[in-house]
């Protein structure tokens, strides 16, 4: 079989199984009377390309498949009372997962549709308008005001965000694009260098989140050549 399909394209072992079932054009319930288990095991050759956690998820399902397969080769064990046949159990898990995958397509359509509606921030609503007197305001008052703002930011977490629209701003996708461009151009970039042009705390945070996202999606990795040395971000080519 060909390995044009890479394991890391899948959402996990169940996703891979559904893919194999789809190309074999069989029913989920016929999975154990098909070649699917063998095909799945074939894919395990790609395991070294995966990180430990992902690899272990694929191995766990491989073990289940092999267990179920081997069980079917043995004479039927005496009825185990209430315990459910692991084969039925597995088929149900797969069926359920497929139902969710199918529903995701519908949810994507809803999401796309809902993107056309825009909202706005609350208005700054000032109740009384006495003349503004800043004469007695001290740096400590300024500091306290900032603490209050931050307290409200914390309180807001957990409530629907008031902020739907930033008329001008920066977004994680934007930052990912910028970092990708940098990596494309230079191959590797010093970690601190990524934040050089960021003009505010929030922008630094967004840049950092973008970097985390890229590392998570394996678009970038981090290397440190010596203990306490500079950290470099490198692009990962797929």
């Amino acid at each position, binding site marked *: 079989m060909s390995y044009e399909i890479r394991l890391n394209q899948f*959402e*996990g*072992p*169940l996703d891979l199984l559904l893919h194999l079932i789809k190309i074999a054009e069989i029913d989920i*319930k016929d999975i154990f009377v098909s070649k699917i288990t063998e095909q799945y095991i074939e894919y395990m050759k790609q395991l070294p390309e995966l990180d430990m*956690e*992902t690899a272990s*998820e694929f191995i*766990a*399902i491989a073990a289940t498949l092999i267990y179920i397969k081997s069980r079917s080769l043995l004479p039927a064990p005496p009825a185990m009372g209430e315990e459910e046949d692991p084969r039925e159990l597995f*088929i*149900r*898990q797969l*069926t*359920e*997962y497929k*139902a*969710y*995958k199918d*529903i*995701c397509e*519908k*949810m*994507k359509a*809803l*999401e*796309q*549709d*809902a*993107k*056309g*509606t*825009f*909202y*706005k*921030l*609350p*208005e700054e*609503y000032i109740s009384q308008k006495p003349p503004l007197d800043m004469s007695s305001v001290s740096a400590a008052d300024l500091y306290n005001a900032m603490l209050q703002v931050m307290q409200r930011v914390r309180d807001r*977490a*957990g*409530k*629907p*965000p*008031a902020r*739907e*629209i*930033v*008329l*001008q*701003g920066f*977004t*994680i*996708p934007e930052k990912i694009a910028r970092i990708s461009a940098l990596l494309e151009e230079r191959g590797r970039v010093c970690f601190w260098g990524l934040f050089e042009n960021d003009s505010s705390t929030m922008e630094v945070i967004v840049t950092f989140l973008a970097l985390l996202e890229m590392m*998570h999606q394996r678009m970038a990795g981090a290397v440190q050549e010596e203990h306490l040395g500079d950290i470099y971000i490198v692009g990962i080519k797929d």
Partner: protein
Amino acid sequence: MEDDKIKGIIEAILYVAGEPLSIPRIAETLQCPEREMRRIVREMETAYGSDGRGLIITRLGDRIQFGTKKEYAPYVEALLMPVQAQTLSQTVLETLSIIAYSQPVTRAEVEAVRGVKCDYSINILLQRNLIREVGRKETVGKPILFGTTEEFMRHFGIRSIKELPPLHIVGSEAYMQDEMVLD
């Protein structure tokens, strides 16, 4: 108070608030019976739907908010360049759909369905305020139970969880009967 005045006040309030406001609270403030208020809101929903209007009343459960008509999105974008809500990745969406349809649900239960760890997507969903902790499960370790938020409804343009497309799981009727789904 006449209907017209109430409608005017609601329009003003929704504009200033920018956030969803609860119908019972509006009714209370305007000293109008809640039933009446619901009728008036329904009438307004119809009126805003008509031509010549650009706003719609978005309903999120018991709360209402102004939003703009979808068909005018290109003009809003051209003139104001707002940053749109990002769409979710497949990984995150899979996790979210399981939470939406089986809430309240624990992380372990979600992971059992997907067959993979879900810490990453659950964190993203919490950060984006699409899910929240709704309690603890009375079981070993008292794991956190997750459910969807109002922001979830807004993100998918639905008024209640019941408006989600029905989930069909062949051969396992036990799961996901309508009554299991929370409002």
